[in-house]
């Protein structure tokens, strides 16, 4: 049984035009999947339907055998502990230390009192240091997060999601605010998460070339619908034209821009 099943998923905010419509796909455990598409296509919304950060309007999302849309508050918290999330703007608490931010990933496993008092076990702290070491930012553990570079902050974000011991990690444009070198470091880490730990990764990207070189599979989204779904080597220019809606008046310059 696949780890994640999306069936006829539809979503609209404020009952306006549909942001997502009739989406169907499945994700196997250990897959590295990229979602590409122009901004406003609904990539972020799709990710947020998976861990129900936004309510699901139509169809269903089945994660690990549970229908996400039907869970109550407590069950939803439990499912979310299995789903890591990484953001374009890292979304760390800037005034807290790196190690504190990493340990925030454990709240899902805590009672209210344990969490409020910040009771973390020695094993959890050791795990946090292990992850920081693996991501190459161990020496910054006691620095305030806002003193780190963007690439380093994103690695803290990755550590925070990994300490959840997730089955899947959702990444919403993780490298959109980073320079090419830092981007490569982050993408390499994400790739190694799937390869070494067997954790599924779904990554929203807008760099087609990076999506092609890193992912096993690519889904192309345009106006809330899937226009391409297949292994990354099968993605060709006519597909990207369709995804980005550039096939009619595509000038070479626009193509260049998208294909970077």
């Amino acid at each position: 049984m696949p780890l994640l099943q999306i069936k006829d998923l539809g979503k609209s905010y404020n009952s306006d035009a549909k942001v997502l419509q009739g989406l169907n796909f499945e994700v196997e455990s250990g897959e590295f999947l990229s979602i590409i598409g122009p901004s406003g296509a609904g990539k972020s919304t799709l990710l947020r339907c998976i861990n129900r950060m936004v309510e699901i309007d139509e169809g269903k999302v089945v994660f690990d055998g549970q229908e996400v849309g039907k869970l109550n508050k407590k069950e939803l918290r439990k499912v979310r502990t299995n789903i890591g999330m990484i953001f374009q703007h890292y979304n760390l608490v800037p005034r807290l230390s790196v190690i504190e931010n990493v340990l925030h990933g454990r709240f899902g496993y805590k009672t209210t009192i344990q969490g409020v008092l910040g009771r973390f076990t020695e094993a959890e702290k050791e795990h946090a240091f292990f992850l920081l070491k693996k991501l190459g930012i161990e020496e910054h553990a006691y620095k305030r997060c806002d003193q780190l570079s963007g690439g380093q902050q994103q690695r803290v974000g990755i550590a925070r999601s990994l300490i959840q011991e997730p089955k899947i990690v959702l990444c919403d444009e993780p490298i959109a605010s980073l320079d090419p070198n830092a981007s490569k470091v982050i993408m390499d880490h994400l790739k190694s998460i799937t390869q070494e730990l067997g954790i599924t990764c779904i990554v929203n990207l807008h760099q087609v070339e990076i999506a092609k070189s890193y992912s096993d599979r690519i889904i192309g989204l345009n106006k809330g619908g899937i226009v391409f779904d297949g292994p990354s080597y099968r993605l060709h220019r006519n597909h990207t034209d369709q995804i980005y809606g550039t096939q009619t008046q595509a000038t070479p310059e626009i193509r260049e821009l998208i294909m970077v």
Partner: protein
Amino acid sequence: MDASTYIKREASGRIAIKMGSKSERVMTWTVTVLIALTIAAFLFFDYTGLDLSKAIPETFYNLKTMFLEPALSHFTWGQAFYQMGVTLGLAFLSTIFGAIIAFFLALMAASNLSKAWISKTVRVIVAFVRAVPTVLWVLIFAIAAGLGSEAAVLGMLFHSIAYLVKAFSEAFEEVDQGILEALRATGANWWHIVVHAVLPSTFTYLLSWTFLRFEINFAVAVAMGAAAGAGGIGFELFMASGFYFDLREVGMITYMILIFAIVLEILSTKMKERYFPAAAKSAN
């Protein structure tokens, strides 16, 4: 000739650069009306028995007695400091309790941490409480508690809470939405998010607002001593001026209040610099 059909013109034909919103017009009207009322008031005052050529020198003479020859006559230095302590105590109690209660109410009032209807309800109530001046609240509580320090503390507490709820909840709403989202996505519950994301991000602001309110409450506590019989230095000031007509003592007490206010200000700035360098920067 018009460069654009979007250009708006004022009645005089000059090109307008203000948005011309409703609030701007209300603002202009309010200021105009207030100026007119002030001028009218001066015209309608009863000036009988007022001889400016005598009144002005006498005022200066009184001010001179007050501030150049200050002295204590009806009580000792020890008593003066004790009364000062009472006033500080009133301010301190109402601020501390106010801040603690306001913290929880502000969590309910912050639109990013609370349900829309709860947030609206708290905001409306708090706005109402804030609209009524502190003195009035003290007098209202005096009905139940009798004039005195109890009513003063309750009234000041009430108004402090309302003031701080607004300040705190606005600080909470400034917290980056993304941080809250990130923690919710890990499965953290509401209390975890409040304690480990909202509190660390806003602590220095909460502290600054609380210090500011303490300064206000100190001034109010002096006034309450006089107006509501709350005791403290304000009551002595009231007695000295309204009862004994002792200008020298009024001057002395005024100096003491001034010195205490300055010391408080220095203390709070020093504390902020020492413990919360970021807060000192953002507050000043």
